């Protein structure tokens, strides 16, 4: 990067156009390259130091035995071998998968349902939209406290409401079986607004004529939804699925505040385990190995989605 900068810097004063058109154009090209690299420099430098470098470093650190305080020791793939018999790791992986594969479809359904509801030509749509977006604009840590309060086993608001319907609610956050569903409900509440806005934008971009044509053809509302709305919305759906899966794999805040990974390890997520390993037990190498596994999962799942996309997502009318 330094080389083009230096040559072009000396070339800069000669930039005033003169001579035949051809020479002028090539000189202009050189100054364009210089300008481009100068414009890129701040972002590229930060990016190399704080993203590209660390990604490579993560791979290297995963091969080390390192507690940050004594010098690192190279141990090859031992950290990865350690993952095999580590029950907490597998349980964290399972919990993360459970969280992802329940919360993502649920969030999607709620977002899509609300977007369809708000898209019915309501006059005060913008007001409802803003209010429904509020959970998305709150701090997870802060609202997690309220949810803990709502989930209080015997007399918490949620169980009180369930009791009103004659249902004896579970002990939620302190129950092995119900702690994860409770986290999922909270997370859906927190994040549906994002998908809702994307779907609303997608719905509003669908040409009205298509609906009129479907009506003329006598298509039922369900068929119209399936054959007009859904295909045309598929790029938005695809984007939301990809981003929410990546986001769900990284779930941390609400689990830390609401259950601290418990009871037992029933809500310990992968990121929480990485955090504990690296910053509570100071095993940076082992934590890095875990994060490489997380990375691999995200890459595989995202790649799979892009393959599926070819079949299911329609970009043209």
């Amino acid at each position, binding site marked *: 990067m330094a080389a083009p900068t230096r040559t072009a810097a000396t070339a800069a004063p000669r930039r005033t156009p003169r001579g035949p058109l051809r020479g002028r154009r090539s000189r202009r090209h050189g100054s*364009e390259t210089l*300008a*481009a*690299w100068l*414009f*890129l420099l*701040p*972002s*590229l430098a*930060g*990016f190399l130091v*704080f*993203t*590209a*470098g660390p990604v490579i*470093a*993560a791979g290297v*650190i995963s091969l080390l035995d390192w507690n940050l305080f004594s010098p690192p020791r190279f141990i090859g793939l031992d950290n990865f071998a350690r993952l095999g018999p580590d029950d907490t790791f597998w349980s964290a992986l399972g919990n993360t998968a459970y969280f992802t594969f329940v919360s993502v479809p649920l969030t999607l*359904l709620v977002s899509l349902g*609300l977007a*369809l*509801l708000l898209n*019915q030509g309501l006059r005060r749509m913008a007001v409802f939209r803003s*209010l*429904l977006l*509020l959970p998305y*604009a*709150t*701090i*997870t*840590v*802060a*609202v997690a*406290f*309220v949810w803990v*309060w709502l989930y209080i086993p*015997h*007399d*918490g608001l949620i169980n009180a409401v369930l009791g009103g319907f004659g249902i004896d609610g579970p002990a939620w956050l302190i129950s092995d079986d119900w702690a994860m569903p409770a986290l999922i409900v909270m997370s859906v509440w927190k994040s549906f607004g994002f998908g809702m806005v*994307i779907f609303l*934008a*997608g719905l509003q971009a669908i040409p009205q004529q298509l609906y009129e044509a479907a009506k003329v053809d006598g298509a*039922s*509302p369900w068929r119209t939804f399936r054959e007009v709305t859904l295909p045309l919305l598929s790029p*938005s759906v695809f*984007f*939301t699925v990809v981003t929410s899966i*990546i986001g769900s794999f*990284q779930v941390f*805040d609400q689990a830390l*505040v609401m259950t601290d990974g418990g009871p037992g390890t029933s809500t310990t997520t992968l*990121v929480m385990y990485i*955090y504990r390993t*690296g*910053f509570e037990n100071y095993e*940076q190498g082992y934590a*890095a190995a875990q*994060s490489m596994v*997380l990375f691999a999962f995200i890459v595989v799942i*995202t790649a799979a989605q892009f393959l599926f996309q070819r079949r299911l997502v329609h970009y043209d009318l």
Partner: protein
Amino acid sequence: MTSDVPALAALRRSPVAARRLLVFTCFLVTAVTLTPIVMMVLVAFQSDTESMAARPSLWPGSWHPENIGRAFDLVPLGRYLLNTIIFAGGTALLETATAALAAYAFARLRFRGRGVLFGVYLTTLMIPSQVTLIPQFILVAKMHGVDTWPGMILPHAFTALGVFLLRQFFLGVPRDYEEAARLDGANRWQTFIRIIIPLAVPAIATLAVFKFISQWNNLLWPLVISNSDSTRTAAVGLQVFQSTNGTQWNLLLMAAAITTVPLIVLFFLTQRWFVKGITMSGLGGR
């Protein structure tokens, strides 16, 4: 709710009833959605005994506005809020500035390797921040950046997402404007500052607000990198508050409400941009 769509459409045939049902459903859904936020505020104003009673009450029996002051006395909430503004504002400003410059190069300037480099930028969108967490921490620690503002802000101020969003927007700015400016003798920097930036204000503001809100929410990085009140953000501060004050619900929820209110106010003030930002990133997925 999703399966309601045909039913809704059928109801449209009797417009008045349908409309009422629609509005009612919207009200109901909104009320349920807002319940946790409303509860947070209501419990925050309850007395100690009331908020800790075995059977929580919904409406405060008596209002205790002094809880606001008590929350500020228990932990340095004001300091935490200021820190959050510095952290979120700093990352948002830096990211927006560097992303705008890079996006201009990707959108408007020709140079060798542009396609490849942009591809590399895009690929990194997929890297979860947890992968870089440990190396970033070690890097910052080696540079004695733990518990300092540069250490907090810099690692999170350069992301491909901003570059990507702004590039999309810059591509849409008509080239004629730039050509005209260049004919008038403006150099690239001047066209960037005087032509492109003013036209891109909505997109740039969107990115800034987006980043500000997501960093206000960020728990993991500040939790790892700040270890004193001088840089502790509200999200981390709330964690500390929880461990030191257990289940004193009224004060806990008061502190939570206090740290949430500025964000909600900002959200309402910049709502248009924010919504547009989400939509734009939605289009970005195409």
